[in-house]
């Protein structure tokens, strides 16, 4: 049998390891307040939120853009924060699950998720809700099948999908005549 040698598990070891990068300054607006962070350029927006700002509502389910648990809104659009470096968010406006409610009043989607029991363990939930906020903003979803399709970037291992669709539908139906979302 061969005798493989090499780095453990992933990647190839470099001859001379590069030194760890220095921290950089990033200013951004998070949930309405202005923040200045000192983070290394290799820090993802997800880790900046969870580790540097203690905003642990945004979840890590894969760190590779494959699950949607880390979905947040950047300038109103839903994105995977694990695929975004914190330094890329310079000057941007970030909304996380912690920023959706106004005071004690939950966002209608948060309300609907509780009412429709659109989660079990709750781990994918912040990502689902942020994604749904983005979805409604985009205005492309008309039918339940549209919702299913456009929410398929957010995995739920508990399988709460039917209730997630019901919760989004509930909020969609309560909205004044949805605008078509334009030509995009």
């Amino acid at each position, binding site marked *: 049998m061969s005798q493989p040698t090499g780095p*453990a598990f992933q990647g190839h070891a470099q001859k001379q390891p590069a030194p760890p990068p220095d921290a950089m300054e990033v200013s951004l607006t998070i949930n309405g307040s202005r923040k200045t962070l000192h983070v290394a350029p290799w*820090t993802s927006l997800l880790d900046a939120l969870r580790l540097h700002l203690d905003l642990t509502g945004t979840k890590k389910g894969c760190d*590779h853009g494959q699950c949607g648990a880390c979905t947040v809104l950047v300038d109103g659009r839903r994105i995977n924060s694990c695929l975004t470096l914190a330094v890329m968010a310079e000057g941007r406006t970030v909304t996380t699950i912690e920023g959706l409610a106004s005071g004690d009043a939950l966002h209608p989607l948060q309300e609907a*998720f509780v009412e429709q029991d659109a989660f079990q363990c709750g781990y994918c939930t*912040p990502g689902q809700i942020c994604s749904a906020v983005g979805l409604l903003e985009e205005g492309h979803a008309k039918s339940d099948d549209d919702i299913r399709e456009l929410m398929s970037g957010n*995995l739920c291992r508990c399988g709460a999908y039917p209730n997630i669709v019901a919760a989004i539908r509930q909020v969609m139906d309560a909205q004044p005549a949805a605008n078509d979302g334009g030509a995009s």
Partner: protein
Amino acid sequence: MIAKPTIPAPLDRPGSQIGKPVSRVDGRLKVTGGAKYAAEFNTPGLAHGYIVSSAIARGRILAIDTAKALALPGVLQVFTHENRPSLPWFDRKWKDDDAPKGSPFRPLYDATIHHALQPIALVVAESFELARYAARLIHVTYEADEHQTDLRAAKADAFTPGKDKGGFQPPPKPRGDADRALAEAEVSVDLNFSQAVEHHNPMEMHASTVIYHTDGSLTVHDKTQGPINTQTYVCNVFDLSKDSVRVISPFVGGAFGSGLRPQHQLFMAVLAATALKRSVRVELTRPQMFSFGHRPETLQRVALGAKRDGTLTAVIHEAVQETSQTENYVEVVVNWSGQQYKCDNVRLDYKLARMDTHTPLDQRAPGAAIGVPALEIAMDELAAKLGMDPLELRLKNYTEVDPNTGKPFSSKELRACFQQGAERFGWHKRSHAPRSMREGRQLVGWGMATGVWDAMQGQAVASAKLGIDGTLTVGSATADIGPGTYTAMTQIAADILGLPIEKVSFQLGDTNLPMAPLQGGSWTVSSVGSAVKAVCDRLRDKLAGLAAGLNDGPLKGLKADDLTFADGFLIAKSDPSWRLSITEVMRANDLLVLEDEARSVPYYKSQMKHALGTHSAIFAEVRVDEDLGTVQVTRVVSAVAAGRIINPKTARSQILGAVVWGIGMALEEESMIDQRLGRFMNHDFGEYHIPVNADVHDIDVIFVEEHDDIVNPLGAKGVGEIGIVGVPAAIANAIHHATGKRLCDLPITLDKILEA
């Protein structure tokens, strides 16, 4: 249309909380990001660990060079088998509550590699990114041995295990002569099945945050289905006292069995925290979620013999499952085949084959999720051969007693499941011939199957504390991995003491609370719920006694049974105007709090005389694209008999989720081993497919009424597992009906449909 939950049993009395579709009491925390999971407890000075995983499946580490990693400023230490602190030698020190017979895996114990992705080093650094980077600089030299990861080859050395794990029952002795009956049967089927490895893959990756206190004590936030199991493991392995290790895990981001055994990130985090005297977090990556227990690969054969009228004359069910080289992981796969139907000639056989993989691990409805579908697909094939309606065939062989033991069921409303499920689905409109329901290039198929799971109960203890303001806090060291334990327990407590839900809170996930067993096997409501009931019953009796003792009070001399507890009042049944509030009773007795603790123990005596189980009937509709082989599960009806349903809203969600699991099992989920490397290739969410929203359509859940005084004092059997059992078979049977192809290798991916 999304069906409304069906509310079972009529409410016992006005104000009753049991049976109400209450929204989750922890819902607000979960939708606002306030619920904290294991990797979310931040603390100043927290160090981060990153695990290095083995590149080979079997062999030895010859050298492990950590110099480059250690040279990076900010890297605190790299732990390997060479520099680890001393660890216990005896297996028993490494055993946890879910350990099967054998030697549990010991991380960093020595240079031996037992399976691919085995953790071989832990890098600890000031930041997560640095630890991850440093991990890539570690250079490992291996000596690889031949590995065996091919079950079809390993099966040549399969052996019959003993009663090697708690809760496992070896198959019953054969009855009659099944092989002969099969040979002589008027009609027979004989099918071979394979089930791929599946990984639990809860959305939350396994993580442990260990907070190191200056006195050397630890607070451990672990992803676990049993905080006490975590505590015991940590204390045994690291020789710590129970007083110095407190586990607090209020929220768990799914587990489905993956949290039944302490996983290696816990070991690593505690190792680093105690050695470095610092708080440490270790979180697995998604690929590393494929480095530990999994649903074992399984090969099965089911052969059935019948008379022309459908009467079963022979049942043979054989299964071979993988286990590791070091432990005998066993699960009940074949036994149900002797229980589901009346049949005089039954032979069941269960074997294990050793492979160079991590020991498998219970996964949602372990055993039943694999074995029952095999039987149910064979039943469908038999029905097809007989030209009989598949539902008819099940009714023909229906049994009211468990043929394996001869014991009657404590309750079994499976007939009602068949009836109500078939009606809701419109089963009578099915045209029986395969390929007879096409719509253009879409082949429509309808299939059905039966599900079964054991109803179990363990011992548990709960404490309760009632304040003079009528607020009640109840607690037990169980977990809530998603089923809604917080909510169900709150309802049970509120119900017994007649309190509004808002006045009651339930605590869990903390080793300072009284003992509860692992959360698994659908037994939490049954075990912990019974303890909650017991302690609340005691408070109720105490309150009644206190009220009765008030000489000038309106309830003087009355017993608990003479009273109704509602809206915070004790009310005389004979005349509801005679009442006292809880506050009045306590104040009159100079009490600010009333506390108690109670243990619930199963009714062993009556339970022993019965077979205890949950049952279900599943009906599924698929659409198969004739050109592409793609399958859409367009409709599922799952009718479940699980005793009393504490909360139809959360219970329905459990069934929905389990049906989604069934869809994954039938069509998508498969951890594929590259046999040359002995390693799972598709170890991420990009390539290990679980159902996404677009894969899931209408799912309709029915809870049929079922009364049961024997399973436990609540009459509730639990619904965590039953929802998945049978679903893969209903889908496979629907695919057969759609295409005329009998596919027995799960998952049924489109290539198999096109090639068949």
